[in-house]
């Protein structure tokens, strides 16, 4: 076949274009974040330490320690005719260039608040978030797809209308409100409602520790599942209804395929297409989007870290977290794109 070679080449070109665009987007996000947080009112050197006895000399010492005494950026004389900012400084000795330089070497600097390296801190927190999202997404996908299929199969009956209403309600409930309600319900039933593990469990045997984490995970995961299940169910239902009205389903019936075969070979493969895109995009957004759930249940994940860092004007952590969120969104979009073109042959030849 002649076309195969050209097709593979085209595929690589497409991928290369996508990756280049992704890199540009990430660079833009890095630059934007740097300035975004520095426009925020408040002084990082004072936000962390609330002690009124703090002297001017102490504050200055903290500034020097974190490099906050240096100018943010030089004025770029040749590009900037109005000469805003300090133009006399060495451009390489500004906060912006030090940050960029460190980032290029893979160093995300040190948190103003905990004095830990940001990369270390975030990777631990990101893992906690991934555990939570992973469980929640998996359950939401399983139940959402099942209910959606069931609803579409029993379309326009009481079962369908019932689950449709429930899904719409679940999808529309504010996440934090649902979280608070479940938190009350959980605390009445003796469930752990905050944090990831019971204090003093770190020396317990591995299985006991995991059991403890699972107990702590129950309520946040339930909240997450309920909210996203509604969305998946609605999409699966409408998508499957669309597919079931197609002529190739009627053809399959006329050819003598059983209900199960029709669903498996013809309906679901086609109905899953829109869902795959949405799941992949959701994966990216929810890394940043579980802030509400993590805050309500004090889950030490990326979302809660971001909120804490924001309150303390902890620039390195904020920059790191936002960079991480941006990268996951971009990566999962790329993933959605690739998955879609793999699953749907119609996309390939375009």
């Amino acid at each position, binding site marked *: 076949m002649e076309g195969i070679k050209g097709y593979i080449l085209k595929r690589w070109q497409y991928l290369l274009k996508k990756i280049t665009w992704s890199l540009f987007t990430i660079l833009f996000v890095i630059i934007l974040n740097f300035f975004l947080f520095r426009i925020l009112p408040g002084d990082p050197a004072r936000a962390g330490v609330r002690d009124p006895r703090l002297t001017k000399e102490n504050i200055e010492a903290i500034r020097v320690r974190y490099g906050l005494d240096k100018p943010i950026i030089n004025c770029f004389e040749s590009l900037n005719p109005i000469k805003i900012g300090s133009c006399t400084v060495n451009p390489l000795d500004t906060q912006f260039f030090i940050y960029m330089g460190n980032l290029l070497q893979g160093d995300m600097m040190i948190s103003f608040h905990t004095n830990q390296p940001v990369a270390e801190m975030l990777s631990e927190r990101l893992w906690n978030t991934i555990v939570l999202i992973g469980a929640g997404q998996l359950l939401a996908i399983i139940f959402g797809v099942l209910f959606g299929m069931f609803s579409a199969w029993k379309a326009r009956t009481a079962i369908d209308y019932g689950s449709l209403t429930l899904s719409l309600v679940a999808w529309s409930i504010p996440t934090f409100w649902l979280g608070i309600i479940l938190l009350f319900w959980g605390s009445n039933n003796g469930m752990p409602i905050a944090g990831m593990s019971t204090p003093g469990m770190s020396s317990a045997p591995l299985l006991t520790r995991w059991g403890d984490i699972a107990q702590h995970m129950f309520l946040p995961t339930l909240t997450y599942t309920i909210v996203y299940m509604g969305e998946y169910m609605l999409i699966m239902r409408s998508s499957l209804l669309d597919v079931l009205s197609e002529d*190739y389903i009627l053809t399959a019936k006329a*050819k003598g395929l059983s209900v199960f075969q029709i669903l498996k070979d013809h309906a679901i493969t*086609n109905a899953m297409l829109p869902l795959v895109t949405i799941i992949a995009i959701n994966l990216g957004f929810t890394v940043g989007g579980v802030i509400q759930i993590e805050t309500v249940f004090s889950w030490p994940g990326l979302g809660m870290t971001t909120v804490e860092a924001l309150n303390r004007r902890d620039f390195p952590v904020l920059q790191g977290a936002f960079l991480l969120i941006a990268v996951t969104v971009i990566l999962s979009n790329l993933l959605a794109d690739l998955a879609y073109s793999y*699953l749907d042959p119609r996309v390939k030849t375009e």
Partner: protein
Amino acid sequence: MSQQTLLEVRGLKKYFEAGRPGFFSRTVRHVHAVDGVDLNLRKSEVLALVGESGCGKSTLSLLLMGLEDPTEGMITYDGQNITHLNDNERKSVRRKIQMVFQDPYESLNPTQTIEEIVTEPLVVHGFDGSHAERGEKVKKALEDAGLRPAEVYMKRHPHELSGGQRQRVVIAGALVLDPEIILADEPVSMLDVSIRAEIINLLAELRITRQIAVIFITHDLGSVGFFADRVAVMYLGRIVEIGTMLDVLERPQHPYTKALLSVIPVPNPRMRRERIILQGETPNPIDLPTGCRFHPRCPVAIATCKASDPALIPLTKTHQAACLLLVK
């Protein structure tokens, strides 16, 4: 042409529930989609079923395929009653009656390749042969449907083919089971005019090479003259005239058939004919008119048409029409 009857339909009716006339009303109204159809189809015969949209011709095809359950009446295939069968019993009949749908853009699963589409019926019906035999059968079906050489098409997906080629794939999917009857529900109405003749020729060819009987459902009387042996004209769920192609097209007896024929465009501009333009809309199939169901639009209706409902009256050995004016 053999005289052996393959498919026989007696008094077939299909009513759909259409909801209640009022909120508190207890009676349920019905759409009379198919309302007493008698038909028979002989081996390797082409029967054209003509009627305007909404006359019940598509419902009739779904009934014949067993995709809808008839309200009343009987369908026999090869002497066997196939009116109400369960899925298992239906399976052997399904092999013998295959269907070609109107829209080739919707009747093929976009995620399957042509090979998978044409192979699937064999798998479903438990084809017991080697892998190579199965491949040969699929190839033969594709080539018989006019997709030559088959290898070029087998690995492709439906969106890479034109409308005419897609319709050929649909036909190949039917042929692969060696059917006795192909039910073609407006197989050419979604295609370009230039390709219509090719598909019609293909169907005409198949009845000669493979002895397949074809029920050709269409709203276009013009394309019927091409290759049908017999023509049945449907109006509001019932057959109003049936006969050989020459009977119906050259000597139409029912006023509805006459009206349909009079509006077919004639290529010769000097040849002028009187056109019969029917007044009004097709009546609502929920509240059927009393008496003859064509009388509100009939240009030659007489008083008795309002009161009595005519049955099909035999005019010659092959020709029947349902009109009170023909009663002698």
